[in-house]
């Protein structure tokens, strides 16, 4: 675990804080598109786009699109933070 000596505690804590903020953001959106949308599905169904009642659409496809975006967004941002805080892993051989 020599990486703990290589990166200072402050640096690691800052990095972890950034991570927690991004994780919280991701989970909030995740919660809204699944549970909040399902909770208000009847109200949302009054909006019909292209034949799809919006509440139904969020359950069937909308939430899925957001999930895929959320994960890639998380991955790219975290990979960027790694560099920013000097905690990225050694280049792969």
């Amino acid at each position, binding site marked *: 675990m020599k990486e703990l000596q290589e990166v200072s505690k402050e640096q690691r804590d800052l990095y972890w804080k950034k991570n927690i903020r991004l994780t919280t953001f991701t989970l909030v959106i995740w919660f809204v598109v699944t549970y909040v949308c399902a909770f208000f599905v009847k109200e949302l169904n009054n909006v019909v786009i292209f034949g799809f009642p919006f509440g139904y659409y969020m359950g069937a496809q909308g939430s899925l699109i957001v999930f895929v975006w959320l994960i890639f967004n998380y991955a790219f941002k975290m990979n960027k933070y790694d560099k920013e805080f000097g905690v990225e892993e*050694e280049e792969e051989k």
Partner: protein
Amino acid sequence: MANGKSSFLDNLGKIYMIYTVGFIVFVIGLGIGEKMGMSNSMIGYTYMVITIGLYAVIGISSRTAKVSEYYVAGRSVPALFNGMATGSDWMSAASFIGMAGTIFGLGYDGLAYIMGWTGGYVLLAVFLGPYLRKFGQYTIPDFLGARYGGSAARTIGIIAAIIASFTYLIAQVTGVGIIMSRFLAIDFQIGVFVGLAGILVCSMLGGMKAVTWTQVAQYIILIIAYLVPVTVMSYNATGVPVSEVMYGQVLQKIDAKEKQINADPKEIEVMGLWKIEADKIDADIKALPGSFEAKKQALNDKLAALPADAPAADKEKAQKAITAFPKNPAEAKEKWELAKKAAMDKTKPIKPYLQPFARLDMLNMLALTFCLMVGTAGLPHILMRYYTVPSVKQARISVGWSLFFIFLLYFTAPAYAAFARNEVLSNVIGLPIASLPAWMANWAKVGLVSFKDLNADGILQFYELTIGADAIVLATPEIAGLPYVVSGLVAAGGLAAALSTADGLLLTISNALSHDLYYKMINPNASILKRLTISRVLLVIVAIISAYVATFKLTIIVELVAWAFSIAAASFFPALVMGIWDKKANKAGALCGMWLGFSLCLFYMIGSRFYGLSWFGVKTISSGLFGIPLGFITIYVVSRLTGGAPKDIQDFVESVRIPKGASVAHEE
């Protein structure tokens, strides 16, 4: 050898591209063959032999004698390909064949499965995937063992991994048997054991390495097979071959049609007839056990009354009726209660397809979604896949690719369901019984579709028709008027889905036994050769046991698979997440948390399933709803009461939290 390996990894894109094109050419070739008179069974056999042959070639050419290749594919699988492999590892026979049918039947409420089985990857991405890769060992119990010190946590991990994976494995092997027997017209038992050979040939010689590259190949076949029929159906129904977008129009048609059916006097007549039927069953239930004896006697009399020269089919039918009859009054009560409930459902107007919470109440739908999500993020055969990528960075991206490849299928499933429902409502209901389309008769033969002219008006009413969930995807090629070669393709896709999941599960179980139990706990000095040999032998033994259990075709299996999610969610997930996110979590906390979460989950399952226990009306399938929070709270509280975690464990957690220093496995 080293050269050959890197040139394979460097050319992955090209190799699988050629493979995909080759497969498409093969399907087109079969299509031409069909036009020239190739028989259906010939097409079925060609599909099975060629696809299983392909998997076998990949499996055998990936054989290995290196521990890191056997357990984690040498940690050399690029993010995108690990995503594909995870996709087919994850999507089982139930996703491929059953998902669309579930939505067909449950309408909006069935979307709990769609959201649950995809949303779980968000949890996996932020809570577990990258950190497990940083930890970088071989199995999930490995992590529990390292984080919570000693054999106790590892042992609970092994037990939970085996319970969750084994029930799931049996369901996959059963799926393989069903597909084999239906499309090759062979016996179910033989189908199971042929399929078993297909599973073993992929995993035995090359472990995770072989399984990974076969799973990628299987993903390609299963996704092509899933998308082709529904795309054609969309083109037929709307003129645009993009089912995922076009089914919106169809939803409106379904809604209008359902209203029309609910107002039809003939339909109302049938609903009345179901009421009479339900009352009859109710009377039988009240008259138990006398009614049980009388009915049993009547069936026996019927068989005895058949003249000696009666057709064999009639005798067989009478015999089957006796075999299917409940064994005792208690079983009769359970069966008849179900029949009564089914009949009662048909006395009421159709619940609109789009209406939320018509079949599951809101609490149960949300609870089910939650349990499936957390369970997804806690299933060891999926988590294990993130050990196989080269870096933490790639692990993060790989979760995204995994969900993307899963998304392609789940995104389409609601379209499948809608097109099929529209077809049934618009073009089947209201037809004269004598001129029903051919696909209905075909699937009636295997019992997936059944219809009966209750009111004897010669016309098919909605409640005179029953369609099994599995029929939706399997029958769509015929509904869309496609040649048999596409039906065969769908079967090959279903087989790929079942085989790939079975491979992943089998490996998880045998690794838990060979690596965690044998190597880590019983004989840490075992040589590499010995470890791999034991692992391979266990693989064969577990496979044979699962096939043996599958041949009994226990109906409880389907239910157990759903339970596996709650079990994984309540036992694994809290301990894994707290292990990374709570530095103070310690051994005592984790042991209590895993044990209590698991116990409460199991207690509620058994209580609600068999003894009428009900908390807030939550159904058995969502039992994890109580176990998950209990697990988290217990770990938090007990860890603090017992003085938190020692310094070296806290350092371990700190190191898992940053990618720097990721272990690049070089073990031979």
